């Protein structure tokens, strides 16, 4: 009799509670790290090659390759000084891909799994897409 009661009441009750507990834990507490990729735009200052130096020495009487250049002055000896232009920078936009880890709770992880959005690579969970979520399960 006791065995009957145990089998028919306690066991299914325990299993039902275990099922509820597992579902609640999975829905509200269980989360895993998923690494995604994100394109990041950055601005960089890229140095430009400086202008070539004027190698011609001698009596140029203040004249330079570029014509009368007030920056190249005479040093009094009649010889022109070497003109050096300052290095220039160009601002460029560079796009790079960065890994972005994110903690996902199990319900959102399951939604990603149903469309093949997560895969296991080298011991890590990685998102298989960048941008819009896939629409269909790949199988």
């Amino acid at each position: 009799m006791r065995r009957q009661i145990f089998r028919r009441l306690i066991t299914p009750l325990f299993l039902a509670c275990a099922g509820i507990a597992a579902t609640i834990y999975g829905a509200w507490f269980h989360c895993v790290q998923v690494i995604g990729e994100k394109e990041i735009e950055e601005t960089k200052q890229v140095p430009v090659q400086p202008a070539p130096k004027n190698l011609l020495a001698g009596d140029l009487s203040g004249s330079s390759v570029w014509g009368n250049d007030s920056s190249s002055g005479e040093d009094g000896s009649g010889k022109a000084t070497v003109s050096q232009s300052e290095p220039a920078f160009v601002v460029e936009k560079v796009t790079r891909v960065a890994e972005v880890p994110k903690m996902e709770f199990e319900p959102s992880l399951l939604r990603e799994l149903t469309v093949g959005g997560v895969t296991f690579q080298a011991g890590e969970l990685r998102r298989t897409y960048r941008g819009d979520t896939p629409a269909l399960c790949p199988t």
Partner: protein
Amino acid sequence: MKHSRLSRWRIGVQSGFLLAWLDPFMLRMHGFCSPVFHCHSCPLATLACPIGILANCSAIHTFPFIALGAIVFTGALFGSLVCGWACPFGFLQDLLGKIPTPKFELPAWAGWFRFVVLFGLVAGIPFFFGEDSPLFFCRLCPAGAIEGAVPSMVRQAVTGQPILWPSMVKAAILVTFLASSLFTRRPWCTLFCPLGAMYGLFNHVSFLFVRFQPACCTDCDLCHKTCPYSKRSEGRASDLRCVRCMECMQCNALTIGIISRSDGAADRKT
């Protein structure tokens, strides 16, 4: 042959559950699992397929708390009742089984192959080889072919998108099981269903069970004739292959039991 009072309701209940799984309110709650075999690739799927989630979680080496919790909870309450009354793929096989063709019985030991599918194709192959393996369960699943691939192809055709055909292997498996359903009852459930394998284990301990009363038995063999698996009534309450369709309850010796009500010799038999 008269129907039991309960089995008369079965088609209606199965139809009602089918509508529920087809997302009538467009909820698409794929973050949670249904307790039945219904592919989440179906454009109308309300919930995720528990077997698909188990396989995918095995592939990503993550423990599936939600899917297992849903299976354990449902199994503890009803056992394999969901197979006989709620599963849409089982419903399809039941409808095909009603076509008057000669029916053959499958051997009793064939049901153990479901556990090979469960531990092999659902758990083992994805865990060791990932979801890209050709033996990954979802790549072979006939329920996925008919509930996911076919509606998706229809939607793609209607919206003018390029049509993604299911693999030839998947289509061949689907055709094989649909054709088999004409000649044997519930071939998928008997031979391959991993979800039915799990629910069958709960038949020993679920709240709801089938009670056999030997005092009422007249050895008429009615239970043998009406049962899709042709199992003897004595072993029915804990039969791993029983889908609790209640067809056997045309006989008065078999009734539904809930939790525990001591019935002397009958309970000793179960």
